[in-house]
């Protein structure tokens, strides 16, 4: 039984509607500076997420295709590349991200990265380094899947280059649904990692650099003392349920930021699941 024939579309609509509802509520009950910060944080997080996805797709595509051709030609580079990919896969993402943030503080200290755009691009780059492996895995798996099909030797016989067959015929024409699904899940993962790291490094990663100049994201906004107190207030509801309505009026900054993070992660996961169902991946 298919209860939701297009659950990816349904969840996309739910996500956008939910965010619109939160913004409408915030515009009515949250003070203007805090509301501006929530909007800015959301925008920065989304931009960083999208940039991460684009970079991860590019790196994953290059790594996957390169590995395939190295293996085809029995090149020694295949072993080297696979070893490096395995090494990145074994490295917990959070450790890599922390290293990236330590480098960011170094760059800020030296004035190498001065603009907020540069800082966002750097964090997206670091996150994509630890997420492109998933894209590379999909690409390798898909190429091997289609390489066994009849059309590949037929096209080779017609004189079409192997590069074109792999990049255009296999990956672009036949694997867009897989790549779209992976892109959505990478986006969710990027948002989760970025918010988490921004939250935990709010205490600072260097005694020389003040991270208050770094662009505000949902994670760093949640780490601010006002938001932390708002989230702490959620615990009061467990002992005093009558306090619940106050959360939606008096503790709006932290509660709405936490809600946007969780709601986004939930919807992205459901959208990815819906795409997998739609294309039977």
């Amino acid at each position, binding site marked *: 039984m298919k209860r939701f024939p297009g659950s990816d579309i349904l969840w996309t609509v739910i996500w956008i509607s939910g965010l619109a509802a939160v913004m409408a509520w915030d515009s009515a009950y949250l003070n203007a500076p805090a509301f501006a910060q929530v909007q800015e944080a959301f925008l920065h997080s989304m931009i960083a997420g999208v940039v991460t996805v684009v970079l991860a797709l590019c790196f994953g595509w290059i790594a996957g295709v390169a590995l395939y051709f190295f293996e085809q030609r029995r090149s020694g580079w295949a072993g080297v590349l696979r070893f490096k990919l*395995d090494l990145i896969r*074994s490295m917990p*993402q959070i*450790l890599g991200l922390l290293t990236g943030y330590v480098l960011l503080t170094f760059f800020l200290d030296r004035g190498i990265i001065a603009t907020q755009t540069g800082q966002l691009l750097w964090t997206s780059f670091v996150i994509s380094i630890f997420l492109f492996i998933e894209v590379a895995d999909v690409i390798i798996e898909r190429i091997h899947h289609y390489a066994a099909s009849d059309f590949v030797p037929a096209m080779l016989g017609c004189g079409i280059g192997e590069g074109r067959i792999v990049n255009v015929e296999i990956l672009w024409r036949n694997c867009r649904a897989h790549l779209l699904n992976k892109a959505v899940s990478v986006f969710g993962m990027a948002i*989760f990692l970025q918010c988490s790291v921004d939250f935990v490094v709010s*205490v600072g990663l*260097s005694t020389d650099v003040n991270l208050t100049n770094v662009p505000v994201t949902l994670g760093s906004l949640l780490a601010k003392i006002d938001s932390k107190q708002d*989230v702490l207030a959620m615990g009061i509801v467990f002992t005093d349920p009558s306090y619940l309505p106050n959360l939606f009026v008096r503790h709006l900054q932290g509660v709405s930021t936490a809600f946007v993070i*969780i709601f986004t992660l*939930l919807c992205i996961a459901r959208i990815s699941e819906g795409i997998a169902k739609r294309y039977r991946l």
Partner: protein
Amino acid sequence: MKKIVAQHIAGLAAVGTVFFLLSLLLPDPRLHENALSMDALAAQTHASAPLGGMVFRFLFVYVAVMVLTYYGAQTLALFRFVRTKQMTTELPSPIAAAGTFVAWTILSFLLFAPGYVIVYSLKSVVDTSSIVLMIVLGVVSNGVLVNYAGKFYALLMNESRKGYVQTAAVKNVHSSYCWNTPDGIRMRRMFRLQKRFPGHVLDHILHNARYQYRSTLKEQASFVITGLVIIEMALNIQGHLCYELLQSILFKNYDSVLGIMFVIFCAVKITDLAVDLWIWRADRHYANLEPDEAISRQ
């Protein structure tokens, strides 16, 4: 097997060498002009004394979370799979379907909540330094359980579409998914550690799906450890390994940073090795390379 072990040891050696070289290159915090104050240094020295205990505690929590997530993901996915199969034969009423959708969405809010949000919302209610809380948070927060249950569910669904399932049904292997009927599923078996459904096609579906899921355990290990590091850092309690890691980064105590990072990397790498050996053993079993063992299992 030797090749698998050698690959992992090479990986460990490569990262170990990089860390060692970095520890030689990075400056000593005591020589740095912005070095930590004497009080902070004393606090660091005091805190780093029981480092072994912190490492042991962290690894214990990690192993417990991995085991519980493996069990939880299978149980949750199996339950969802059986419910899906039941709904193909008996359509639930629209109200029941809507109720399930709303209940599952609300539960998902908890399961998808990042650990640090749950930690801060509970900080005034429970003792956040408790090891039990760490394990519970490691399993239920950050979307770990729900993501991996989703992956296991997808494997179960894929297996259930294969031809051998229909063949088994034709050959009178039990294939009803009703609860507690003679040819159906016994509910209490779903919650056992060793989930077996003898005489039922689900036993074969589950066995094959579990075999495919093993490679996901490597990805799960990396994600679980990321979640635990985030939770420990967010808890901000002295005596937790990752709090010390954050403090060491802040005060440029790079030897300590590299040491802790290497321990965490080793934990994931050893898990990878164990999973690869497990897969290798299962592959040999399926390829009938160990006839004695295969016969003894039958």
